[in-house]
């Protein structure tokens, strides 16, 4: 028999263990990054890899520094950032509101059902060329792509959220004499929050894809344009600068959405 009191670690010990675990994870994460970059750099220098096909870390770093200093990188970042954020906000907000409101009309929910299934199945980015035709070549069309895609996702998720509400809960509120709008406010909206929040999380990715693919198709500026254009010129280091900048943007948005998620959670 093992005595539980002597083997169970106390709280302080547990905390130190967790800290040292976290430190180890961090060390490995940095090590992995350094290792990959090191192999990549070495491969180029030793002639196993071609720099014009793969780019080279040292070149990426100096391209990053010079493009940061001449302001061009920040301008591309700013353009794409606006497209993503504005598109995300418009699409997610309108999509969520319409998806929720659909609960009030079982008729329309039924009418729209096959359309929703069709929209859910189609790769939404395939709409991008159409939207460019409708909205022109400027920022508006990228905002529109991001907004339309995120609208669809938010709409479907919010609607799904309302469908998952326990019907007994609705029966309870009805038995208390609640009107549909009261049921909507008291139960349906807060009860759908987990689905709404998960839509927001998905939509960060979709808004980025929408804006960047829109810029690939046609644009004068923005990170997507920069990546695509540099690729055409075989300037692989600049392609990497663009890609890493998009990663940074994604991480920043991720932090914001995590914060919103915490605020909305019950």
């Amino acid at each position, binding site marked *: 028999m093992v005595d539980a009191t002597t083997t169970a670690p106390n709280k302080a010990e547990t905390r130190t263990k967790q800290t040292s675990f976290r430190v180890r994870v961090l060390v490995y994460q940095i090590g992995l990054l350094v290792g990959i970059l090191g192999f990549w750099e070495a491969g180029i220098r030793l002639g196993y890899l071609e720099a014009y096909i793969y780019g080279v870390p040292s070149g990426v770093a100096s391209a990053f520094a010079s493009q940061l200093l001449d302001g061009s990188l920040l301008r591309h970042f700013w353009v794409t950032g606006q497209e993503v954020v504005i598109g995300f906000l418009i699409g997610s907000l309108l999509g969520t509101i319409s998806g929720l409101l659909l609960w009030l009309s079982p008729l329309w929910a039924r009418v729209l059902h096959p359309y929703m299934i069709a929209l859910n199945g189609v790769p939404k980015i395939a709409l991008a060329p159409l939207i460019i035709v409708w909205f022109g070549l400027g920022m508006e069309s990228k905002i529109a792509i991001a907004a339309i895609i995120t609208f669809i996702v938010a709409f479907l998720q919010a609607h799904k959220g309302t469908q998952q509400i*326990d019907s007994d809960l609705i*029966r309870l509120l*009805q*038995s208390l*004499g609640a009107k549909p709008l009261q049921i909507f406010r008291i*139960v349906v909206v807060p009860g759908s*929050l987990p689905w709404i929040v998960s839509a927001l999380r998905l939509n960060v990715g979709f808004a980025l894809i929408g804006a960047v693919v829109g810029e690939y198709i046609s644009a004068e500026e923005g990170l997507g344009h920069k990546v695509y254009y540099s690729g055409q010129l075989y300037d692989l280091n600049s392609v990497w600068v663009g890609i890493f900048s998009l990663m940074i943007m994604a991480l920043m948005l991720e932090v914001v959405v995590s914060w919103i998620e915490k605020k909305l959670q019950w």
Partner: protein
Amino acid sequence: MTPQDDIVLRASGARVVYNEDTAHPVEAVRSISLDLRRSEVLALVGPSGCGKTTLFNAIAGLLPLQGGRVEVGGQQVDKATGHVGYMLQKDLLLPWRTVIDNVTLGLEIRGMRGAQARAIASDLIRRYGLSGFENSKPAALSGGMRQRVALMRTLAFNPDVILLDEPFSALDFQTRILLQADVTRIIKEQNKSVILITHDIGEAISMADRIVVLTNRPATVKSVHTVSFRNASTDAVNIRTHPEYQAMFAKIWSELEIIDEAKGSENKVA
């Protein structure tokens, strides 16, 4: 007071058919007539699927009747207006609301908000042993406590008639027995008239003044039993040791048309 005034709920020939206009109508309740007297606890026992919940939904005004009528407080029921308190097997607490905000739900729906509603709720919470949990979320409570909060929510808007649909069946045995005793005490104290659906005969005998046994679907009243051997000193626990308890248990058991799924025939154990 005439006996007529003493009836707080009356069902006369109530009939409910699902999908009436389709090729496959389901007659859930054929014809139920029963009276609920003021301050009485009436238990409904019947095989599962016989139409008990359907009858409750009709009483609460959530389902239309296809025949007969239901009156609560002398008023014919035709839609859900909160004329009864309805408590289900699931506690159905809103997980994003605190205990006190769950208790005020019925008041809020009637347009009472803020301090007045909270005063009523916190009084109930304090009186019935949940002090200190006012601002907890339901997830922090045990099953028994959650069901107690659900009862507070039902009592808060002060309906005369309370419908309890198997409110204890999701609880473990000990919690169930304790809560049966508690609920009986609380509804007597609050002077409520109650219909209790249960498939637990022991629960029916230990809580109810009268027991209505229903037939298989479509439900009709098979028999009515009066529990006369309870007095001030019996409670949900010790009534089970009463000699008449056993006899009544056996009688009701024999009347229940329980289909034994293994044998495919009715259970006739006496």
